[in-house]
């Protein structure tokens, strides 16, 4: 499975020369599955860059939204395939008792916030609530489950046909009211999604020092992200959803701190990555252990 980050920022786009290396675009990750299919995780402003060369490549596009906060859907209006009649786009997202997914996204893609309405888009677009049980897209098994954030919010576990598993929980506060290092695993939000993932892409918006002013905002501090990753036995971890105030230099230092804490928790060097725009990773499941001689 190939992973490419198109937007790693949280909350609001944060452009500027001091943000160039990690990027200022909001959440969007492209997955290329081993069978050649593509999935898009979230449609923050990062999806604009992805869309530029995308429609010609693939007529059918699946976008998995974690939730409908603006930093996860703002790029939809600027996603080039939406404006091409040959595009077929399916947008998956969390259900809500209040209104359909189409109606809720339509609040953004409508006047006065947008110059066009959903019905005016030339592409063939459909909106689907994520199923309650695992389903299949492009040869991968997809599982969506609610996680601790503000409003209906999903995390995704994507298992490719070769067994590689990626977990994407972009907005998550599993430590809210729950001491992660000691609580039983059945009480940890997102646990089943993240268990033994080959790559866990997870919210890490705040430093431990910043967090007390943001408790309950729906995002993780560094120590909770790392503890969550250790408790779930993630093989690799990508720190994601950077605070818009965190500059490149700040994030460099943040990663150094994270690596130190990770080793103190028993993690191995090289398992942590700081998400940055256009970063590409190849992820694969561990090779099966060789059969014992004589077996």
């Amino acid at each position, binding site marked *: 499975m190939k992973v490419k980050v198109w937007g790693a920022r949280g909350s609001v786009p944060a452009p500027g020369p001091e943000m160039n290396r990690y990027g200022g675009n909001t959440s969007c990750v492209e997955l290329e599955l081993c069978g050649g299919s593509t999935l898009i995780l979230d449609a923050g402003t990062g999806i604009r860059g992805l869309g530029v060369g995308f429609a010609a490549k693939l007529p059918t596009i699946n976008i998995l939204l974690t939730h409908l906060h603006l930093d996860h859907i703002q790029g939809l209006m600027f996603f080039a395939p939406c404006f091409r009649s040959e595009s077929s786009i399916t947008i998956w997202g969390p*259900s809500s*008792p209040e209104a359909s997914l189409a109606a809720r996204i339509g609040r953004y893609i409508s006047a006065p916030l947008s110059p066009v309405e959903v019905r005016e888009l030339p592409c063939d677009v459909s909106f689907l609530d994520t199923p*309650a049980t695992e389903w299949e897209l492009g040869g991968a098994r997809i599982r969506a*489950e*609610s*996680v*601790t954030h503000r409003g209906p919010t999903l995390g995704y576990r994507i298992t490719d046909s070769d067994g590689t598993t990626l977990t994407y929980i972009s907005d998550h506060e599993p430590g*809210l*009211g*729950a001491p992660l290092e000691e609580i*039983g*695993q*059945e*009480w*940890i*939000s*997102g*646990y*089943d999604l993240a268990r033994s993932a080959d790559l866990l892409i997870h919210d890490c918006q705040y430093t431990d020092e910043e967090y007390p002013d943001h408790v309950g905002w729906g995002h993780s501090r560094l120590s909770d992200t790392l503890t969550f990753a250790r408790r779930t036995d993630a093989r690799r971890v990508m720190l994601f959803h950077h605070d818009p105030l965190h500059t490149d230099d700040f994030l460099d230092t943040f990663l150094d701190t994270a690596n130190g804490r990770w080793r103190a928790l028993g993690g191995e060097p090289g398992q942590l990555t700081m998400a940055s725009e256009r970063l590409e990773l190849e992820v694969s499941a561990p090779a099966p252990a060789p059969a014992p001689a004589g077996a």
Partner: protein
Amino acid sequence: MDQRPLELILARNFLTGLSTPAFLVDEGGSIIFYNEAAGDLLAISFEEFGQKPAEEWSGAIGPFGADGKPIPIEELPTTQALRAGRPAHGNFRIRSLKGDEHDIESTALPIVAEGGQEGGMIFFWPTAGRGA
């Protein structure tokens, strides 16, 4: 053990922060958590008490009616809330593991998620207590 539904996880986190004695039960009525205030009332922490099916916990702590006789499980607010899917309220007496008895006013609220009922929260308001 598999992860609990998010609604129960959030309820547990909420109850953890309350000073009102409060219990969390699963859809079958088994106690799956209670907070420190409830632990004070029962004179045993949840970590020591552990998860218990309704038949076991009702035998351990009561509840009892004003006449001192055990109240059948079917008549408890918890059971009514889970079966009817609506809040239920009641008065009874419980006995802590130290032998103290407490008159309790209790409200049980079902936790209903998109997929159906996941369990319930039960709050205890002690109205009077007497030592063993």
